């Protein structure tokens, strides 16, 4: 294991600045490419920032290092958040990001397998990322490697039965090298997540399934880092972080408005968003 923990971890102010830049980027990408799921991307930006700038043991120059930590965007529809972070972190050139969703480009609306360095699994159909991540965590166990697996799920995704199959599997195998983060923005595509299926109490559910489960403000980067960096945390259990978030976070006229699950911002809305984010 020779990947540095996280070299030159940015301080809180820097992490916030990075998150703001990523938010501006995903708003632009949605506008330029005409792609939806902007609210879902914005709600998980702070989680992605905490992961890629303060937690993950990764080296963009050695994206296939077998000892690297794995981050799986199980909520694949927030792909722009992952793409923007990977590009900003130096996994691939900015030109690839700029070509997002154009004909023949590497980056599509959902991440494909090996589409760019840094994408660990193809996602887009919900309920797939965590089981794949558990296979990676199990491989680490068998191979005697120390890397961790982080899987970012949406709350709507927790409708899928395969999530709960996986939730029972990880503790049974004592996969304490796994961390699930649920981006709990209280919305799914067409309604309130707790009115669609009985999701709450979500932390209690994960705890009852055998996870060391925590609740956190999903926009408090420092709090996220504190939980995520302690994986494994000595409990002997996989870690579940229920991150309370706001869909569309960071842009006042998108926050908690589920129209932005599908709506695409117009040019003037992009400008207003960037101004609010302190980017222009």
């Amino acid at each position, binding site marked *: 294991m020779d990947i540095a923990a996280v070299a030159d971890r940015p301080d809180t102010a820097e992490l916030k600045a990075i998150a703001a830049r990523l938010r501006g980027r995903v708003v632009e990408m949605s506008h330029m490419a005409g792609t939806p799921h902007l609210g879902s991307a914005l709600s998980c930006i702070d989680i992605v920032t905490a992961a890629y700038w303060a937690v993950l043991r990764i080296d963009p120059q050695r994206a296939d290092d*077998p000892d690297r930590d794995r981050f799986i965007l199980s909520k694949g529809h927030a792909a722009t958040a992952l793409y923007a972070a990977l590009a900003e972190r130096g996994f691939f050139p900015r030109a690839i990001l700029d070509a997002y969703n154009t004909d023949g480009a590497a980056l599509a609306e959902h991440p*494909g*397998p090996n589409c760019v360095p840094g994408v*660990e*699994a*193809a996602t887009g*159909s919900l*309920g*797939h990322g*965590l*089981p*794949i*991540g*558990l*296979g*990676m*965590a*199990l*491989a*680490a*166990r*068998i*191979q005697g490697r120390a890397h961790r697996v982080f899987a970012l799920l949406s709350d709507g995704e927790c409708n899928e*039965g*395969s999530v709960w*199959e*996986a939730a*029972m*599997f990880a503790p*049974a*195998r004592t996969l304490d090298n796994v961390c699930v983060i649920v981006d709990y923005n209280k919305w799914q595509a067409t309604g309130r997540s707790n009115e669609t299926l009985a999701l709450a109490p979500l932390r209690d559910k994960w705890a009852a399934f055998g996870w060391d489960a925590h609740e956190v403000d999903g926009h408090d980067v420092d709090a996220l880092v504190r939980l995520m960096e302690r994986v494994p945390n000595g409990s002997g259990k996989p870690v579940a972080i229920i991150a309370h978030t706001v869909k569309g976070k960071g842009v006042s006229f998108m926050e908690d408005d589920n129209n932005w699950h599908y709506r695409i911002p117009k040019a003037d809305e992009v400008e207003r968003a960037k101004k609010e984010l302190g980017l222009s």
Partner: protein
Amino acid sequence: MRNAFADEITRAAAADPRVVMLSGDIGNKLFDRFKDACPDRFVNCGVAEANMIGVASGLALSGMRPVAYTITPFITTRVLEQIRLDVCYHDVPVVIVGVGSGLGYASLGPTHHSCEDMAFLRALPGMTVLAPADAAEVRGCLRAALAHPGPVYMRIGKKGEPAVHTEVPAITIGRSLVLREGTDVCLLGVGTLLPEVLAVAERLAGRGISACVVSAVSVKPLDEDRLRDAFDRFPLVATIEEHSLIGGFGAAVAEWLADRPAPGRGRLLRFGTQDHFIHEAGEVEHARHLNGLTVDAMTDRILGALAPAA
């Protein structure tokens, strides 16, 4: 077949530290030797097949060679999307093994029958579909599957099937095996029905008809050389499988034939299960009888097809 599979996978795991065995909570005692030899590489995934296939993909993405095993419908139809995305879309070397395929678990009813699995998995990009005829072919297929760089699906029988080989044949993906030479009719059998197909050939021999019998072990990709030869050389080519006529091996051959520029001289006759569930109890032989897959029924139909038109 399952005993041969358990023995062969135990040998494979001893020889290759990348081999991991995933079971969907079946094979009581069957894998005890594996568990003793490689305890950290036997994983009972429980009755949670969707997760099992995802776990297999993650293992393969991390350099392991997972083999996932349970009763056929639960590791094919039930988890078709996991196979499609986690395995095939990622193009990872996961071996999926369904036990008791076709009507192998006849008495357990349609919940445990699998007469559509090849149709579904054959359609998935990058998937290889193998149907071994006996215990020896199971061993050969597993060796070929573990050496293959992409996804492989093996539909195997249950236990106690008659042997059609005296030793383990070398299986090559995309190649079939001739079990019996003949000149008048070519019988392309698939999987567990091969002993029946050989019995049909014996019956035909008694009527002075020489039947060539082939184990069409590689359902995808097809052995196109064999098909070309069969349709050029024989006036009648029969496909015989414990699988629906919709989408199975016979359908694959029909597709191949329809796309062939020159049809050759052979006429295609397909044997398979019918387009309905079985709503009555019964053992394998009864289920085959209901689908015209007994030695008697198949022999009669082939004789009828060979008889000159009145």
